[in-house]
């Protein structure tokens, strides 16, 4: 039941934003090809801690301000307590900031920052314009399939998401 309600919530959010995105003029052509492979990052605490409940989302998918907000509210992390000891928390934040979308120049970072306001600090990657545009062809019902769960579950369709491979050609949407 928990999953179901949550799924509906995510669906509604993603759906609404998709509709909005459709009505906005898009500067970038859709289906801009594959080749989306993120550089492999290694950081012990980031991999160990962030990947215990979900994949370790790439730091380049959100700006620094988002990561600061995220790491400052781990005791209420999307409705769950994900608190860490202060040393580990600070160590991970340092890494996230150094590799954020608006930190070191990266292809992913530039895409994510397109249309992002200077003061924007979204907590959900799925709410960035980049994510919404990239997934606008995914039908609403697909997100709530039991095999997917929610849009937070990258690896449901991007089977090699854990390895940073988001290549469009490698996408397999489960039944």
């Amino acid at each position, binding site marked *: *039941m*928990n*999953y179901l*309600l*949550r799924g509906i919530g995510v669906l509604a959010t993603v759906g609404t934003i998709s509709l909005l995105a459709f009505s906005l003029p898009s500067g970038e052509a859709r289906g801009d090809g594959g080749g989306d492979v993120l550089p492999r990052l290694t950081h012990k605490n980031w991999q160990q801690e962030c*990947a*215990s*409940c*979900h*994949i370790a989302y790439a730091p380049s998918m959100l700006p620094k301000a988002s990561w600061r907000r995220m790491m400052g509210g781990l*005791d209420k992390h999307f*409705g*769950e*307590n*994900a*608190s*860490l*000891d202060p040393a580990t928390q600070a160590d991970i934040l340092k890494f996230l900031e150094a590799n954020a979308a608006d930190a070191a120049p990266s292809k992913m970072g530039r895409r994510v920052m397109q249309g992002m306001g200077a003061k924007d600090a979204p907590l959900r990657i799925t709410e960035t314009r980049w994510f919404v545009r990239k997934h606008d062809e995914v039908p609403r019902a697909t997100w709530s399939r039991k095999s*997917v*769960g*929610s849009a*937070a*579950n990258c*690896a*449901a369709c991007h089977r090699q998401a854990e390895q940073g491979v988001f290549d469009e050609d490698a996408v397999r949407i489960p039944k």
Partner: protein
Amino acid sequence: MIKHLFCSGLAMLGMVSAVAGAAETPASLMARYAATAGVPVSALSATRGAALYRTEHSGRNAQAVSCASCHTDNPKQAGRTRVGKRIEPLAPSANPERFTDAAKVEKWFRRNCTDVLQRECSAQEKGDFVAWLSQIK
């Protein structure tokens, strides 16, 4: 004096290994939780541990939630997080890595008791919980 130094050295070592989360066993954790609760290990109850695991509480959004919500009814099975990632089984008979790292055990009790019970668990409850899981064949 030398004996005193030796003893405090041993105590220090014990503390360091506890902090570093060095090798624990379900039994050593039970002993530690019992000591913290001020009861003998024999006072830990697998029955109470099972009840703690299965009892549903009103979680956020007033939805019923228990340990079993994510870890499934059978702790020998793998569970799933809310975003669909696999959780390795909780029972040591199915997953020998469980209850071997004190820091990890404490981290998850702190997080999950707060999520499920809206409060932290007591040492007695943690001891009961380990007692139940570790006797599952």
